[in-house]
């Protein structure tokens, strides 16, 4: 993968086949996590769909993607967090899923060119992928050690690569 760059008409990079397949596979998994919580597109008023759950997801990675908006331990805060989640969760999950779908459809092997909107979707989705992988790796603070097994090492490499890609995309979008 080359660093992202801003060219006339879009944000460009190039991916080899393995990178494209990895991004598509990760995006598909992210969509699979979010889809059960996302609103129904066929609803009469998309975007106004109400139907979020009233508690944070039990999967810690999903809970990190859809965190509580009120953190206090008192009953008032817990009620506010429930109400907020009920109103926003399905919409937020749907938008995150849609961002990942943009990565799935645009992460192809070879040279790729992203519109500004697609680049924004990539920025969001790369962040969400890194948040999920960090949870799986047990990264809790800046000094967290990665488990010393083959699977964790591979996942840590993917995590670092996504971080590099995202940093290069921020720089390209930002100029």
């Amino acid at each position, binding site marked *: 993968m080359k660093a992202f760059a801003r060219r006339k008409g879009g944000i460009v990079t190039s991916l080899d086949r393995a990178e494209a397949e990895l991004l598509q596979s990760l995006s598909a998994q992210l969509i699979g996590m979010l889809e059960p919580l996302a609103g129904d597109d066929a609803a009469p008023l998309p975007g106004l769909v109400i139907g979020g759950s009233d508690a944070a997801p039990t999967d810690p990675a999903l809970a*990190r*993607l*859809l*965190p*509580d*908006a*009120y*953190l206090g331990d008192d009953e008032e805060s817990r009620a*506010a967090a429930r109400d*907020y989640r009920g109103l*926003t969760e399905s919409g*937020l999950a749907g*938008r*995150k899923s849609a961002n990942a779908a943009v990565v799935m459809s645009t992460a192809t092997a070879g040279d790729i060119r992203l519109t500004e909107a697609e680049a924004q979707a990539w*920025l*969001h989705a790369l*962040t*969400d992928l*890194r*948040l999920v992988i*960090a949870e799986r790796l047990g*990264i*809790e*603070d*800046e000094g*967290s050690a990665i488990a010393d097994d083959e699977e964790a090492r591979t996942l840590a490499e993917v995590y670092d690569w996504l*971080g590099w890609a*995202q*940093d290069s995309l*921020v*720089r390209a*979008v*930002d100029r």
Partner: protein
Amino acid sequence: MTQTIEQQEIDLDLELVGAPNADRPWSTVVWNDPVNLMSYVSYVFRSYFGFSRAKAEELMLRVHTEGRAVVATGAREAMERHVEAMHEYGLNASVQKDDA
């Protein structure tokens, strides 16, 4: 007489001090996490809130070093919209009362 006038002045002072807080009792707090890149957090603060580069960097560094920063204050509904946007960007954020 004197007593009454002093009493009024004190009340007036209290109102002047209290008024700005009454209008802005809610805040949007962004929390540090070990995942998000400093370049990205600063970019989000500029592109979403429209902060200058200097202000965005200052807030990003405050999140990084102090663990959290208040990035906006105002009406509760507005803070909830900000928090939803931060969550969409993948930043950890919460609505808090009386924390300007």
